[in-house]
Every structure is written in structure tokens, then in C-alpha cells.
């Protein structure tokens, strides 16, 4: 078996472990599915009339508008949970078991990211299913749904890279958990839950340049109107930027951890 094939098998095995770990530990699963679902229910139930505000983009319903935000919240918290799980592995010495194996050590990070991406895929399917069950329409049909699913999955991988970098650098689950509120702040300072056009300064200016806003719009457009190549490209470029940042930071943090022992 070639080294590449061995590493691919390792990434798959570690990704599977990561998914099982999330489903077996409720405190990792809750932020990914339960909280975003509850928030979606509360917001659509309580603030549905927001769609009538002047400047609000034309949508079928507030639920339809909010699906992208719920997916973003879910995948951001999946990245944070992935970081916490990696930090727990470091704290309990499980990563030593992995570091002592004859594999490329970066596959350990990639395995974790594969698991986070799979959770992102699961979140995308979950929220699209909820949307469809409660009457939201995917305006651009199957193709649009597939684009949204792909973007959510890729963003989960990208955000997971940042979570992994923090975990590797600090080796502390409580420090990674401490980023939880920051994740929400960054998300609220994007177009995830409210149209940028209706925000006030300085939040509006921040949201306009927040890369997550580009990602959100890339996911939202196929759901609320149709596939827009410009929005999709902007989302892909933003995700690519976050992926590169996450991988570079993870690689540096991993090198630092291995050197420090």
C-alpha cells in the first residue's frame, strides 16, 4: 500500500472517530444541532415580521432567510467543538498515541477536519430538511441545494482548521471553549441573522467586510432566489482564504507542539 493510500485511510479512520466522538458526547453534539435548531425556532417564531421591514430582501418566509444563518451557526460551533475535542485528546495524552505512529503527523489534523466537514454536511442536510418540512422553498432547486450543502461542508472544514490551530497551540479544552462567545460575536457581526442593509454602523461596516458574510450570502442566495455566480465565487474565495489560514496556523501550531514536546 502506498504512503498516500495509508495516509488517506488514516484520515478516514480518524474522521470516523471524530464523528463517533461527537455523537457519543452530548456536550459536543448540543451546540452543533440543538442550539442552532432552538435559535432558529425562536427567531422564526418571534421575529418573522422582520421580512416586512423596508430594505429586507425579498424572501418567501423568515425561515427561508434564516436557514443559511442556522447552518453557519451550526458549522461554526462544529469547528469549535472539533477544537475542544482535539484539545481533550491532547490533555488526556491520546494524541501521543497518534504521534507515536508511523504516519504523517498532519494527517491527525486532517482526520479531525474530515470529521468536522462531515458534521457540516450533516448540519446542512438537517437544516435543509427542517426548512422543507416547515414549508421553506429552495428557490434554485436541487442544484442550489447541492451548492449550499457543498459550501456549508467546505466552511465547516475551514472553520475546523482554526479550531484545530487553537487546540494545538494551547492544548487546553477550556481555552478553546473560551472562544465560544467570540464565535457567536463574529457570526452576529455578519449577515447570518440579519441583512447587512438593515444594520447600523459600525456593525454594518464590519459585516460588509466580514468574510463570513460572503459565505452566508453564497449559501443563502440559492435558497432564497437563485444561483448567482458572483455570490458563489465570493463565498468560495472566502472559504479558500479561511482554509489556507486554518491550515497554515494548524501546521505551525503542530510544529510548535512537536518541538516543545
Amino acid at each position, binding site marked *: 500500500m502506498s504512503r498516500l493510500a*495509508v495516509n488517506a485511510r488514516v484520515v478516514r479512520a480518524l474522521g470516523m*472517530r471524530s464523528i463517533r*466522538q461527537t455523537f*457519543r458526547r452530548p456536550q459536543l453534539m448540543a451546540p452543533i444541532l440543538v442550539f442552532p435548531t432552538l435559535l432558529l425556532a425562536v427567531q422564526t417564531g418571534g421575529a418573522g415580521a422582520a421580512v416586512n421591514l423596508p430594505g429586507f430582501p425579498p424572501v418567501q418566509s423568515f425561515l427561508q432567510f434564516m436557514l443559511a444563518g442556522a447552518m453557519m451557526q451550526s458549522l461554526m460551533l462544529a469547528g469549535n467543538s472539533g477544537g475542544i475535542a482535539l484539545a481533550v485528546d491532547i490533555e488526556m495524552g*491520546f494524541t501521543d498515541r497518534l504521534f*507515536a*505512529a*508511523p*504516519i504523517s503527523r498532519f494527517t491527525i489534523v486532517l482526520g479531525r477536519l474530515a470529521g468536522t466537514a462531515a458534521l457540516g454536511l450533516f448540519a446542512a442536510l438537517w437544516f435543509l430538511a427542517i426548512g422543507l418540512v416547515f414549508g421553506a422553498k429552495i428557490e434554485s432547486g436541487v442544484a442550489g441545494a447541492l451548492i449550499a450543502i457543498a459550501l456549508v461542508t467546505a466552511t465547516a472544514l475551514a472553520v475546523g482548521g482554526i479550531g484545530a490551530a487553537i487546540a494545538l497551540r494551547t492544548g487546553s479544552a477550556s481555552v478553546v471553549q473560551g472562544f465560544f462567545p467570540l464565535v457567536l460575536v463574529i457570526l452576529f457581526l455578519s449577515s447570518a441573522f440579519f441583512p447587512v442593509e438593515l444594520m447600523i454602523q459600525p456593525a454594518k461596516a464590519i459585516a460588509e467586510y466580514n468574510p463570513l458574510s460572503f459565505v452566508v450570502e453564497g449559501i443563502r442566495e440559492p435558497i432564497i432566489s437563485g444561483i448567482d455566480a458572483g455570490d458563489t465565487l465570493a463565498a468560495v474565495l472566502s472559504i479558500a482564504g479561511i482554509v489556507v489560514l486554518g491550515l497554515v496556523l494548524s501546521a505551525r501550531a503542530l510544529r510548535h507542539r512537536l518541538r516543545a514536546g
Partner: protein
Amino acid sequence: MSAAIVVENLQRAFGEVLAVQGVDLEVDEGEIYGFLGPNGAGKTTTVRMLTTLLLPTGGRAVVAGHDVVGEARAVRASIGVALQEAALDPLMTGRELIRLQATLQGLPSAEGKRRADDLLERVDLVGAADRRVGTYSGGMQRRLDLAAALVHEPRVLFLDEPTTGLDPVSRKTIWEEVKTLNDGGTTVFLTTQYLEEADQLADNVGIIDSGRLVAEGTPASLKAEIGNPHIRLQLEEGSIAAAEEICGHLGRLLPPVDGKTVLVEVEHGAGDIPRVVRALDDAGIEVGTLELVHPTLDDVFVAKTGYHLERDEKNAEQEPAEA
């Protein structure tokens, strides 16, 4: 016989602190090497360098024929590692863990499955194989950790304090498994803070204290270094003088501890017993009890470091933490 592990002037500093200060040692293929020392002596730091988990800051080490820095991946393919306080994921099942370990070692899926089944049977965990590791007892976790370290049939096995915190029965089970493995040709590098463990298992012992190797040799040679064994004879009070006269010709008489005992230091240990018994019997002296008393590894430890290992460890554990 070729060397499985060669360590030359190995050093590791953490900032200003020198955790390992120039260790030299050699472990032959098929040997059990006991690395003995108290907490904080540098045992785990040395093992982490030998298993490529930590870069040395000086010196060099070759494990299974490969340099731990320049050929780290080849080292990792040749060794099995069970680190201190079994690093197991409590959410995985025992079977999942061993199969993951097989994948990490590059074994094909079917082979990994077969090895997992064999190893679970070998360490008597078949019944618990599909339970989560978090439900295992300490002894079961150590056995699982050992099984995982063996999945690729490593040439050299590193066991870092494999029995710390285990009850005597679980400890003995691990010892038996280590002996069986060694009988099969596996080289074992075992760190321990238990003198009895080193004495029972190790062909050679290295004593580390404050990051330096202070003594090395077979348990017998280390004990011999600090004195020969002696024979303790319990006799009738009236025959003591005659017995001392006879024994004085066969070895060196040691100061008596009471009026019924004769202590005689002998050069060849058990080999001298028949000579002593015959001489006493020829003189018509009846021996009540006879015991061959060897110096212990604790005596060696005290001679080399100035303090008792296990007693001082226990005292340290019982002392309240400083405010």
C-alpha cells in the same frame, strides 16, 4: 547480539531545567531493560525521546537501528508504545481502539480486524471488546493499552510505568504478559518506580536520578556491587560458638543479631549452601532454619542515591501539598 537501543549522551532541557543530563545506555535485542527511578527523575522524558515524541536537545539515540531524529518514522514503525496512564479514549470501544491502532500502523483492514480479535483474546478482553473504554477497570485499560501497542508486532516495546496504580493481581497479569512477549523475542524497555517489578522482570536495570544514570547492570551484579549475599542460620543456643567457628572458615562472619542466629557472608550465594550445611552436619550441629539473604535493589538504590525509592515515594505522596 546486536543492540536494539543505543543511547549516547542523551540530553533534554526545558528552558533552564535539565531534565535528562547525558544518559548513555545500550539495550540488547531480546532483553528486558528496567529503567528505575523516582518521579521526576527523567524516566518519562527519556522514553518520550526514544519514542520520537520529544526532540533531544543533545546527544543521540538509535532505536531498532534507526536514529530517533533523522529516521523518526522508521523508528515509529518498529516500536510499540504504552505510555504512562494509558492514553485511551473513554468513548471508544476496546475493539475500535485496536483497529484504529492497526490502521495507524498501516495494516490492511482485514489484517487489522484479525489482529484485533487475536489480541483481545490474548489480553482476556473479548467479553468487554464492544464496551466503551470508559467503563473498564484500571487493569483492563492497561491490558488494552498493551494490546494496542502490540498490534503491528513491534521489535521494541516501550512500557512507561505499566503497572503504576494497579492492584497486585492486575500487576502480576501485566508482568506475565511482558514475560511472554519477551520470550517471543520482543525487546522491552520498561520504566518503573517499583523495585520488585524491575527485579522480577528486567535482565538489566538502569537507575536514573535527577536526570543522570547513576548505576547500570543486571539486578544480581548491582546487588553484588554493594555486597555478597549472606546465609542466616537459626540454631540451638548451645551450638552457636561451634557453628561460628565452622562458618568462619567458609565465609565472612557478620555481626550476630541475637543469641540464636549466625550470619555468614558467602561469595557464591546458593552455591555455598550445601558446603555450609555439610560442614555443620559433619560437626553434629542441628540447623533449625536456613535462609539465603540477598541485597535488594533498594539497598542498591540507597547506595547510589542516598535515599530509599519506594518508601520515599510513598512519603512524598502522603505529604500534604505546600500552600
